[in-house]
């Protein structure tokens, strides 16, 4: 699905600034149907990596294919849906019309747009809120609208950049569970950026541990947890074992010099 080799990103730092190496030597293969979490402290380039996959940032070295295409061609082919840290809803559109936005751009006929919007809002548990404007929805609901919007045009890849970072823990737990069910119900591939170890372990079947200065991948941990998880799964010894593995990988990568 996604394959990166020797991938590097250097920001030129503007006219006076020194160049900043955001990513270096990234080797990563994401298989179809994977739920991959990118985890690491801030500044480790996890968001940059996601943005490079989305062709929102250009790689300065190495090679990258998304769905067998270059990142740009994949973006032009609308291969992925992107969920940002903030919901980024358009405030003048209702929830329903926000979800219809990509469908309008793709040129779907109006009845199909409406049907899809209703279906995906229902899927994220927002039936009955179709006609609400963003300011009438809570933060968690807004983020769910943005997930419905990213999935509405049925891309095979979902890129999520700390989508629940700004939410309280209870809302976050609920949305994690919800996301897991969505992933199980579809054959979508998810790349998920987070800095929460329990979130990464709970959601993923592969966890990519990253470290800063320069941003790079230090370890990839495969999780053999069963796919049908609930919030109690986090209490099991298997879960704790993988969480410890991730924590140790993060500590090893980030020894505070």
């Amino acid at each position, binding site marked *: 699905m996604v394959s990166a080799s020797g991938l590097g990103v250097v920001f030129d730092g503007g006219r006076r600034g020194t160049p900043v190496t955001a990513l270096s030597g990234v080797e990563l293969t994401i298989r179809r149907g994977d739920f991959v979490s990118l985890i690491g402290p801030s500044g480790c380039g996890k968001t940059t990596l996601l943005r490079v996959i*989305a*062709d*929102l940032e250009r790689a300065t070295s190495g090679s990258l294919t998304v769905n067998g295409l270059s990142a740009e061609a994949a*973006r*032009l*082919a*609308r291969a*992925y*849906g*992107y969920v*940002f840290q*903030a919901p*980024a809803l*358009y*405030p*003048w559109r*209702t929830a329903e019309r926000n979800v219809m*936005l*990509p469908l*309008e*751009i*793709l040129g779907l006929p109006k009845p199909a747009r409406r049907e899809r919007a209703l279906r995906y809002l229902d899927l994220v548990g927002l039936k009955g809120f179709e006609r609400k*404007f*963003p*300011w*009438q929805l809570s933060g968690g609901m807004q983020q769910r609208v943005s997930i419905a919007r990213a999935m509405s045009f049925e891309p095979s890849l979902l890129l999520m950049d700390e989508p629940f970072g700004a939410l309280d823990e209870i809302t976050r737990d609920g949305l994690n569970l919800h996301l897991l069910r969505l992933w199980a119900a579809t054959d979508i591939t998810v790349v998920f950026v987070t800095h929460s170890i329990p979130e990464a372990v709970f959601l993923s079947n592969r966890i990519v541990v990253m470290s800063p200065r320069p941003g790079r991948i230090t370890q990839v941990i495969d999780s053999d947890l069963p796919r049908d998880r609930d919030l109690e799964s986090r209490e099991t010894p298997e879960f704790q074992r993988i969480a410890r593995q991730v924590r140790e990988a993060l500590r090893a990568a980030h020894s505070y010099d």
Partner: protein
Amino acid sequence: MVNLRPVLTVLAVLIALWYAAAVPLNGPRTAEQLARAGSYTAGDWVLGTWSMTRPVLPAPHQIAVELYSGLLLQPVTSRRSLVFHAAVTASATLVGLGLGLVLGVALAIGIVAVPVLDRSLMPWIIASQTVPVLAIAPMIVVVLGNLGVTGVLPKAVISGYLSFFPVVVGMVKGLRSPDPLQLDLMRTYSAAPRAVFAKLRWPAATGFLFPSLKVAITLALTGAVVAELPTGAQAGLGARLLAGSYYGQTVQIWAALVMAAVLAILGIGAIDLMERVVIGRRGGRR
């Protein structure tokens, strides 16, 4: 419910000050007139300052009487009717505002879409507003007159010349108001520039349009009145001002000024109403 007491208090104070100011301003000439007629008391003198036919500063009730007779006691097609003059000026203002709106929005779209235009057009747009409108108004009227364009259009052109500026400034700001996240979102959809404009930039700018229009309509009104001054216009509030000053009819001048203010308030009120309707349909917040 709005508390009217502070409003009415301010109004009462202003009117009291106005009456007080009329006494010294009109006093010397009132005294002359009264002296010619014989002896007079201080009371005669004070009351006289408030009822001169051609006062330096007319008293509020004189303007009120003039407004009343001009608005209600004349047939509306008569040249003595303030309704007639106000309508002439208002039509030039509205056509001018329309021209300013179209020109302003078109320029703003150009400036936002084509970076070169930002640097090449903006200085000219700013320079256009530094030219005194009183200086170019007669030229525009003469040039257009030679081309056979007369009537409401030359005045509207001058109104448009003044009113496009706040529209450009507001719309450029509005079209650039989407944040990087909202723009990135469009990029993830590989949206064509046309779609980015129609679905993001334009709706985002609508909220900026109405405040600009409120400034623009007062400027358009000023433009229409000014355009009527140097051109020998026979109709309109500007013509009324000019005629009043020729014949020393200060009451007439003040009545025309009040009418202009009323027009401006009505215009801003109408735009405010449109804003409420549009913003209300877009979810009531922005």
